[in-house]
């Protein structure tokens, strides 16, 4: 294979763009599938983040007064508890659509990144919970579990970037 004809110089610059991988956890935000995934997830996050933040801020206040339990009325806490799995499920569904739209190598990288994120999440979660329990004597999983979903997204992006550099 010594007589390889020269081709476009752009051919050598063939890695996936770093910014899209690290910022959004996708290979490109310029492809139709990438754009759609990014746009829909942004809307979903916007719908979720504001009420979730408000809930996190007021969570202890609500628990202390037991207002969301004792009155038997739907409260902000209930609304967030319902909203969270719906939006997370929607994001996962969109992610599935996005992954299915990828070619075989990109799909393999996404799946591999998810597998590593799952393993990392288990290990990090166990370590954090142990530290937390040791220092506070209790675990408050009410906000930890939903927050973990979002905290793992940068981990997935990091794994995706790392894995994509092999090719």
């Amino acid at each position, binding site marked *: *294979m010594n*007589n*390889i*004809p*020269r*081709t*476009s110089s*752009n*051919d050598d610059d*063939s*890695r*996936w763009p770093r910014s899209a991988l690290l910022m959004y956890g996708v*290979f490109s935000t310029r492809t139709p599938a990438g754009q759609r995934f990014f746009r829909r997830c942004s809307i979903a996050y916007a719908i979720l983040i504001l009420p979730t933040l408000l809930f996190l801020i007021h969570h202890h206040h609500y628990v202390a007064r037991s207002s969301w339990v004792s009155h038997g009325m739907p409260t902000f806490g209930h609304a967030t508890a319902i909203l969270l799995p719906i939006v997370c499920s929607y994001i996962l569904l969109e992610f599935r659509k996005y992954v299915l739209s990828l*070619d*075989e*190598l*990109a799909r393999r990288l996404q799946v591999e990144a998810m597998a590593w994120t799952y393993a990392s999440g288990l290990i990090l979660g166990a370590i954090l919970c142990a530290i937390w329990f040791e220092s506070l004597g209790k675990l408050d999983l009410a906000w930890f579990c939903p927050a973990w979903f979002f905290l793992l997204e940068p981990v997935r992006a990091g794994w995706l970037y790392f894995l994509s550099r*092999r*090719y």
Partner: protein
Amino acid sequence: MKNDLRVLRAKRHLTQANLAEKLGVSRQTVNAIETGKYDPSLPLAFKIARVFGLAIEEIFAAEDGEPATGN
């Protein structure tokens, strides 16, 4: 697995982007196959063979097997 994809592509004056479009994959995938970092699936290997009008074994060969001819 080794292959003569880069030679075949260049002989036909195709860029990686052109070939990727014909195959329905990303340019990065074509590059990964050419550099031997990624072995394509059987359906993709068939597609590649069809694009160049060759048999799969004329493009791809096992590392310890007969070399790909690249004709």
